[in-house]
């Protein structure tokens, strides 16, 4: 039996052997990025703080995947698998958030940013836990708009 083409290709790619220096560089970059994200995180940027942190995390994650996990040398199916799984995570989260953002406002959890209902309590212990909500007078008048 001959070798499937894919396997040959991959073996060829994996023949490359890099010096340890490459790993050290990546490691240092990862540590620097960690410090950067902690620094920017402590600034508590109002709107895009989490976004910035996630962008930095994605850069770090990409470095780990490409170099520590050798995805830069893998081709074909391996990359596809990784790419598809990341895409599906993004789509799962995207569709779900889209729902919360566009829902009838009273159908979101009371007390949340996208609800007009006030939380009765935060449900902190066994005795509470009766989170409902009520409409403000103002909102009652507005609710048809």
């Amino acid at each position, binding site marked *: 039996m001959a070798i499937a083409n894919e396997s040959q290709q991959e073996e060829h790619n994996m023949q490359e052997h890099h010096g340890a220096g490459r790993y050290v560089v990546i490691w240092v970059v990862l540590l620097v990025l960690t410090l950067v994200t902690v620094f920017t995180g402590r600034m508590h940027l109002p709107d895009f703080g989490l976004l910035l942190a996630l962008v930095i995390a994605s850069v770090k994650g990409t470095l780990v995947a490409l170099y520590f996990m050798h995805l830069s040398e893998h081709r074909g199916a391996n990359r596809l698998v990784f790419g598809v799984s990341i895409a599906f995570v993004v789509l799962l989260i995207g569709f779900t958030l889209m729902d919360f953002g566009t829902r009838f406002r009273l159908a979101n959890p009371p007390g949340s940013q996208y609800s007009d209902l006030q939380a009765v309590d935060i449900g902190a212990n066994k005795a509470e*836990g009766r989170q409902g909500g009520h409409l403000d007078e103002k909102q009652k008048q507005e609710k048809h708009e």
Partner: protein
Amino acid sequence: MTPSSSIAAPGAVPGHEATDDHGHHPSYLTDGTTVKSWLLTVDHKRIGIMYMAWVLLFFLVGGIFALLIRIELLTPGPTIMDAMTYNRVFTLHGIVMIFLFMIPAIPSIFGNFLLPLMLGAKDVAFPRLNLLSLYVYLAGAGFALWGMLNGGLDTGWTFYTPYSAHTTTTVAPVLFGAFIIGFSSILTGMNFIVTTHTMRAPGITWFKMPLMVWALYATSCIQVLATPVIGLLLLLVTAENLFSLGMFDVARGGDPVLFQHLFWFYSHPAVYIMVLPAFGVMSEIVATFSRKNIFGYRAVAYSSVGIAFVGFFAWGHHMFVSGQSTFNAGVFGVLSMLVGVFTAIKVFNWVGTVYKGAVEFSTPFAYFCGFLFFTVFGGMTGIAVATVSLDVPWHDTYFVVAHFHFIMVGATIMAFLAALHYWFPKMFGKTYHEGWGLVSAALIILGFNATFIPQFLLGNAGMPRRYYEYPERFQALNVASTAGASLLAFGFIIIAVYLTYALIYGERADNPWNSKGYEWLTASPPPTHNFIGPQPTYPEEPHFYVDPNTGKGEVSDV
């Protein structure tokens, strides 16, 4: 280009004589007869057979639950059980049929048995993981059964919170069992994907793979990508039920609709885990029994992958009236239509395959006819319930029940039975009685229709699902449905009897269909390492029934 010699003369299969006549190479069935040689085998064929034994057992269990449900619904009031028992019975019917029967049925039995044979490989890529997946499945089934024997649960197989978080029935072990079965499903899926990528025999390029392999490949992708999400969700609900973790707890600001999003992110693709392998089986069968190349091979192959992909992004059509946003309903509605188009392509191409073919109306083909009927109507009613406003009255009524039984029970069981009959000689080297086969196929197709067509009408009339008692105006249709179910049960009994008989006393058969599928080019039953001697040359194309003298010379376009 001329087809290979092995295509021209199906009788002269290399290694065939050696196996049967001289006995040097025992078949996989006789290669080791001890119990240990079965239980610890890594042979994909034996694992497939062991899966078959267990899966059929759970099919029986689920079927008994189904009959109990139908008997209970004979009268508007209580008939043979109380409400609590009924609620548990329909839940267990769902769980057993979905997690223990439908998901492993075709991939784990026929996929395991056939995938390496169809690819000309000696085994799947990870034989020991394959065996592990069987035992993981049994461990999960054990947990679930233990939970059932300890009272069972009454949440419905959808486990919606907050009900599942608070019910006092035995939720945790059954959920944990389903979680474990998820691992088995993932292992099988991984194994199939890697096998398809790395184990194809020389000459088998992607577009020379039989359509069954394409379908299994697409199924495996769904299994690998979707199952982890339900695994996590089952853990969260178990934790909610046992320790009040609070992830979906309304009293803490949690959102039960978020649970539904995550649940259907798995459970909608899971529908395709159940039905895509059925599409694969039917592609094989329609080609073999009309002795024709598949009309639009690439279209059928691509549509399998397309269904697998788009199927992931249609989940919200289960939630049109759940409080989900109108905007999301629109997005999911459009995406659901695409799934319908992919299925339509398949249906047209199957019918097109018969054109200028040579149809032999034997048992598997009878099931193909039933399958076509159930797929068309199950699929069209699926499109209908995904048509956003129509879902409002139909949601959670018997219309939906009838729709998914048409697809999952109708189409998938047709395919399961067709596969069982079609590959029975391959698996055991024997044939069954054709007359009984046709009679029971007719009975079963009739029985399905008699069971589920009244349920469509019940749904139109407004009877909600999971009802223990119902207003009297629904009784006539319920009685009709129960009558159909008993017909169905009768059909299954006949099949069980004549197949068992055939297993023992059946006539010796090698390739009774004169099929040219690659799996038929080795002996029936196949030897342990699948092929003996020089491996048969792979045909120019899968499903190839062209006259070797003229070849593809006369290509007729349509």
